[in-house]
């Protein structure tokens, strides 16, 4: 029976991801084009916020991804620690810069949105602050990967950092709520709540989120392939020097 762990074999992983990648990329493109143009041109303007509400189609998906990329890295790190599949460690490494960029997009679009609506680019609001801290975690994680030469040591150390960092990121999340009450609204996309964003905004937003997910998957698969190939090249070079 085919199991998920088959893809721990780099060769199999590259072959399969090569086949999947064009579809994923296409889906990402279609979803983003449809979602963004639907959102930008075919939704009404919010009666209080005017047209500045449209930045929601970038802000919410990127914020959603910023957190979920970290969770994906956490899962990949756990798989690496438990089962020691190199592809998993490389996938975690490949995801980190994407997650960091998502965090920056969320912060930047949030600032641009906040300027006309709240009248300020930045406030020390719990949500904003915890995203900033999350960004710092991404930076530290990437810096640690870059600093260590030996691949396996780097994978091990960053995996432990990811685990410990997750706990502390969660702690910080609740600490900043205690520390300051903010301007940012609470969750308004939950499936189980009465009061959500109105449907006209909700559906294009869902398409945009799907587009961001597909975009992320495409980028991670591509970057993981690159990492695998780079490592293979280093191994070949090392063999050549020896032989």
């Amino acid at each position: 029976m085919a199991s998920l762990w088959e893809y721990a074999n780099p060769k199999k992983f590259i072959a399969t991801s090569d086949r999947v990648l064009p579809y994923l990329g296409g889906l990402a493109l279609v979803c983003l084009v449809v979602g963004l143009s639907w959102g930008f041109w075919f939704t009404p303007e919010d009666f209080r916020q005017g047209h500045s509400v449209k930045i929601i189609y970038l802000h919410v998906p990127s914020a959603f991804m910023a957190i979920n990329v970290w969770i994906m890295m956490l899962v990949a790190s756990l798989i690496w620690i438990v089962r020691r599949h190199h592809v998993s460690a490389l996938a975690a490494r490949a995801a980190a810069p994407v997650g960091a960029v998502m965090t920056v997009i969320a912060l930047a679009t949030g600032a641009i949105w906040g300027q006309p609506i709240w009248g300020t680019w930045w406030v020390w609001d719990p949500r904003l602050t915890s995203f900033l801290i999350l960004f710092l975690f991404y930076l530290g994680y990437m810096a640690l990967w870059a600093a260590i030469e030996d691949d396996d040591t780097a994978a091990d150390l960053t995996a432990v950092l990811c685990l410990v960092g997750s706990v502390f990121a969660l702690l910080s999340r609740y600490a900043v709520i205690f520390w300051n009450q903010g301007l940012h609204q609470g969750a308004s996309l939950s499936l189980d709540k009465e009061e959500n964003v109105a449907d006209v905004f909700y559906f294009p937003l869902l398409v945009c989120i799907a587009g961001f997910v597909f975009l992320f998957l495409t980028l991670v698969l591509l970057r993981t392939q690159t990492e695998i190939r780079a490592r293979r090249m280093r191994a070949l070079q090392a063999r050549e020097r020896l032989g």
Partner: protein
Amino acid sequence: MIALLTRDLRLALRAGGGFGLGLAFFLIVVVMVPFAVGPRADLLSSIAAGVLWIGALLACLLSLDRIFALDWEDGSLDLLATSPIPLEGLVSIKALAHWLTTGLPLVAAAPVLAVMLNLPPQGFMPLIISLLLGTPALSVIGTFGAALTVGIKRGGLLLSLLVLPLYVPTLIFGAEAARRGADGLDITTPLAFLAGITCGTIALLPFASAAVLRINLR
């Protein structure tokens, strides 16, 4: 284990550089603040608690890379790792030694510097209590960071990038308690959270530190 603790303490006291340096750094950071924000007494007294917490945190950070670096360089870390003490115990002792040589002097120096920053009188006790409760967490978290970066040459900058985000919760609750104390408010809630973080890190982080140390010694 006690022998290891006394060895570390003796090294910190006699080898120079480590023990007094953190304290001197704390002093200098705090002295720089009035130059930067101006000497107005009311302004200083409102920011004193936060400044003292930041100063203590930075002074703590500065001395972290010494926890393992010297032992790593002369090879005694390998010997310690092969000794009968479990590695978890070793890192706990290292963290304790770091706290005794850095955290505790900082707590002792803080009231003096608080006078210079014009901290309101009712704020002294909360400041000392919050530092006393919070600095052990700083040492334990810092030991984890030091264990992570022990094999890296010139890891100091990387160490601060890794450790400072981990310090966020401790700083928030510690400084919150000190600030509330200075304003004459109730401080039990942030203190309870702070104590919780300290106990949690002391209980759990040594395992993570020992794990990364094992990886680094491999």
